Each structure stands twice: as C-alpha cells, then as structure tokens.
C-alpha cells in the first residue's frame, strides 16, 4: 500500500475569485515530500479555499503541481486518482455503510466492473492494515454512522490511506476531539507521513506546536509567513494578525 515514490506539492500564484471577491490572492506554497505542513490563519484567510482549488472543487488560476503533474484544470475525481486525498470539516463518511464497507469503497477505485458486480468475499489486506493503523480493528462491522466523532475522522483518514493517496489534505481533523483523541490523531499523522505528504488545516495551536513540521500562515488570501513553528511564532506580523489574539484565547 506504500506509494512508489514520495512527492511534494508545489503551488504557484494560486488565485480564486468568487463573484468579484478574491478569496485566494496569489498564494505560493512548497510542501516538500514527507512534510507535515500546517496551514493556519484567521477565518476567511483562504485556507480551505486553497485546498478546494488543489482538489478541483473550485476553479483557480495559477499552478498546483504534485510531483510532476499539474492538478489545476482537471476533474475532481481525476485529481483524486493522481493520489490527492482530502477530508472535510464535517466528517464525511458513509453512515449507512459499515467501517469495512467504507474502507473497501475507498480502496476500490481501480476495480473492474466485473469485480464490482460481485460480493466482497474477504476483506482486502490493505483494508485490514488500515483498520489497524486507525485503531478501528474491532469495529469493522459497525455502521459508520454509529462511530464517535473522533473515530469518524480517523475512518476518513483511513479511507485516504487505502485509496493510496500520497498527498493528504486534512481540513480541521481534530476539531471537536478530546485530548486523548488529539494525541492519537497526532500519532496517526506521524505514522502516515512516513510515506506520504500531509497538509493540515488547523486552528488548535497546541496541536500545531506538537505535531507540525512546518507552518504556513495565510491572511486575507495571501501567504503571510512560512517556516518552522518557532520561526512563525516569532514573526511579528503573525503575532499581530493571528497568534497574538488566538493563543490568548486558546490557552
């Protein structure tokens, strides 16, 4: 299930406009292979829109390359097939299907119609492995809708793992999680990043300090600052627009 090679994300001059309102205004972003990059910024900074643009949900100009492939201008499902996986702010699992069924669907993009027309007679190896990785081995037959909030988020990440995504774009994965769940999610990200590149949108500063390898701060659709956690925290511009306010309230 390991991707053959590790690729990075390279975004140049990305712009997204909604009816005259510029949500992303010339963003450059370099996420090296194997990074855990955190995207932070106040509400409306354009974090989710950057991810939307990279995954083909909204139209954008500029360039976004993963490895040597240009992503912009392709259909959503074609981008996904290039190894780009994402999660959403609201956990999006198929609630009427079981955990195994959810993972099996995610693992099956390349299946032939003939395979699809038959029953699954055993659980595929990569699904078993992913169940282990996300810690849901004993819940495979449970309906995804009955999982706890945190478990749904993990299931979603697991779905990206079995779909063999090599770039994971996670939109607020620990929102609404307990402390233990956050720790487990952080550990999961570290495991995952061994053979994948990870980009995380997150508001939780404590989580960021513990698990980010690098940070990009967006503000009003532009990159405000970029670097290690320490570098970014030391940046006076960041403190001004974001950290100064947010750390005080989050602490």
């Amino acid at each position: 299930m390991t991707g053959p090679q590790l690729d990075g994300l390279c975004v140049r001059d990305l712009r997204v406009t909604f009816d005259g309102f510029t949500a992303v205004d010339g963003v450059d972003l370099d996420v090296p292979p194997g990074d855990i990059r955190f995207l932070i910024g106040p509400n409306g900074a354009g974090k989710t829109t950057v991810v939307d643009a990279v995954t083909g949900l909204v139209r954008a100009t500029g360039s976004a390359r993963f490895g040597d492939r240009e992503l912009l201008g392709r259909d959503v499902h074609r981008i996904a097939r290039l190894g780009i996986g994402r999660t959403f702010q609201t956990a999006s699992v198929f609630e009427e299907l079981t955990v195994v069924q959810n993972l099996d669907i995610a693992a099956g993009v390349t299946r032939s119609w003939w395979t699809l027309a038959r029953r699954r007679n055993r659980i595929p190896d990569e699904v078993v492995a992913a169940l282990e990785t996300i810690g849901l081995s004993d819940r495979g037959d449970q309906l995804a809708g009955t999982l706890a909030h945190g478990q749904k988020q993990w299931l979603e990440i697991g779905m990206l793992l079995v779909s063999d995504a090599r770039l994971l774009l996670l939109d607020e994965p620990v929102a609404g999680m307990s402390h233990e769940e956050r720790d487990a999610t952080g550990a999961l990200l570290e495991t995952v990043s061994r053979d994948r590149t990870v980009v995380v949108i997150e508001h939780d500063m404590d989580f960021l300090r513990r698990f980010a390898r690098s940070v990009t701060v967006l503000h009003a659709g532009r990159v405000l600052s970029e670097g290690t956690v320490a570098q970014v925290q030391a940046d006076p511009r960041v403190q001004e627009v974001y950290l100064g306010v947010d750390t005080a309230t989050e602490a």
Partner: protein
Amino acid sequence: MTAAPLVRTDPAAVAGTPPGGRRGRRFDGPARTAVGFALGAALLFAVAPLALSDFRLSLLAKYLCVAMVGVGIGIAWGRGGMLTLGQGVFFGLGGYAMAMHLKLADAGPGELPDFMQLYGQLDELPLWWRPFASPWIALPATVLLPMVVAFGLGSLVFRRRVRGAYFAILSQALAAAMVILLVGQQGTTGGTNGLTDIQGFFGYDLDDPVNQRMVYFIIAASLLALLALARQLFRSRYGELLVAVRDGEERVRFLGYDPAGVKLVGYVIAAGMAGLAGALFVPAVGIISPALIGIVPSIEFVIGVAVGGRATLLGPVLGAVAVAWARTALSERFPGTWTYLQGLLFVLVVAFLPGGLASLWVLARQRRSDPAGARWWRRSRPVEPAENRTEVSAA
C-alpha cells in the same frame, strides 16, 4: 465558512442497511436466500394459481408487472437516490415494442395492423415499424430500447451533475413529452387509444385462459429473476458503492470515482426492468396506451415502492402489489374514495414513515431481539460517543 455536509443520511434508507454489516445474524446468507426464493416460488407458482380464479390471476399478473417496475425503482431511487418519475417511459417503450410486434403478427405478413387501416392514412407500414415484425429484433428491443434511452438521458444529465429534484422533474418531463408524442402521432401509434385488442402471443391465443395462465407464469418467473438480480446487485461491491453515491456523491468523487458512471448503471438497469415489465404487461392485459405510461402512472409506480420500503429488496414488490390490489378493490366500489385514500397514503407514508412498511418490520424485529436496537432511527441523528451506547450490531 462551514461547507454543506458532504454525506447526508436519508432517513428513508435506514431499512435498507446492506447485509454486509449483519454477518453473524443467526439466519442469513445462502440458506435464507434459498428458503426465501423457494417460498416466493411456491406462492407464485403453486398457491396463487390454485387459489385464484382466472380473472384474479390475470389481475395478479398485471400487479406483478407493476412490481417489476418497482424492483427497478428500488435500485435507482432506494439505493441510488435517483427519484425517477418517468419510469412509465421505459415501461411504455418495452410495452410498445412488444405490442407493435404482436399487432404485426396478428395482422399477418404484409398486412397493416387494424388501427392503421381504420385511420386509413397509410398505404404501407411506416419504416420504423418494420424491424418489429421480427421477434428477434422486437424481443431484445423491449429491454434494450429503454436501456438505450436511459443511457442517453442519464449520461447527459448525471455527467453535468443534474440531480435530486432537478433530475426528478426532468424525468417527469420526459414522460410528459413521450405521452404527447404518442398521442400526436395517431396514425402510427394509435394515439390516445394506444395499441389495443391484441389477440395472439407468439402463436398462442390470448383469449384462451390456459394461455393467460402461461403468460402469468412467465411474468412470475421474470419477477423472481429480477429479484435475484437485484439481490445480487445489493450485495455486490457495486451495490455498496451505489449507496455511497446516494449518501455522499461528492465524497465518492473525492475518492476518485466518477459518480455519474455509478448512477448511470443503476438507472439503466432500472430502465431495462421497466421495459421488460412493459413488454410482459402487453400479453397479460392486451393493451398498451399513453394513459398507462404517462405522468400519473409513472408516479404511481413510485407510490408502491415508497409504501413498501424503497431501499429494501422485497418492499417495492409487496408495496406495488398491495397498492395495486387496494386500488382495484376500492376503486371498483368507491372510485372517489380511492383517490383520497391514495393521496393520503402517499402523504402519510412518505412524510411520517419514510422507510415504508418495511421499516415497521425492521423495527419489530429489532425490538424483539434487542430493546436498545429498537431505536433504529437514532442512527441518523448526531451520534453519542460509542462507549455509552449499546451495541446495535451485537444483536
């Protein structure tokens, strides 16, 4: 900034939880299926023909045709979330293809069907009628023609993400257009009357009760075959994928699938089933006409499915037969009352029992085996932490 939920849960679909998650239930798998089909076959092939008069049996044949359309709607709507209000179109294509062949066979080689002679506008058979003289073309066409039309419409609209209510309205408009077209081309389609007074069925006289019985058996066998097909589809990986597309089309797209293709397959299969039903309806009833395939009958197909339980295997069949039977029984005696009742039934079931009568069955079964599981509807609500919950699947 919160995005719209990508995956929503349809409360109506609860009763349709696929069997994959229920392994280990005491009576499941091949044994149960075999028993189920044996029971169904016994009912349809032995009990019904023995217990019912010729007249009642031919009515049942008609209901079973409606049930076949329902099996398809169960796939497209119950599993795939595509509310198709135009199944009458496919039913009609199958029916007209069959009826055209039978009319030509009745008329004999080189002769015009009776209605064409009656209207007297034509000296020879229209070009598009000619292929239907051959059973080798007409019979496959009853199923393939609807599938081709569904493929054409489906590939256009699903690819452009026309869905939900938009799709429902478009499919209904298709039914309206088809009816107007048929009525307008009276000289070649029989107009409002349709193709009537069909005498023979591949050499068998349809007035003979023995042959009517044969038609009934063909219909019953076809229904069982469609049920077997639907069951395989529900249990296949495709069936799981179809449910995933229903509940979260965009999520499926972000996993790398093209949901348009997934939906298209379900829609085309449903169309083929409706076509077969229409084709068999013709020898059973002896007529196909615009009034049988328009907007109202199209939506009545959906009623049966909704009443029975849209996402279940047997719900659409039982619902379709029950509604059709109630209609015959009541509308004979109190025509007006039946219309009120039909409307009321629709309102009550869809609004307050979206899983159909099948959800009552699921409810009762779960209450018996696991009191906590009786709160099945809670699954579609925001979920409390799993630690605090009684295991539903342990039942």
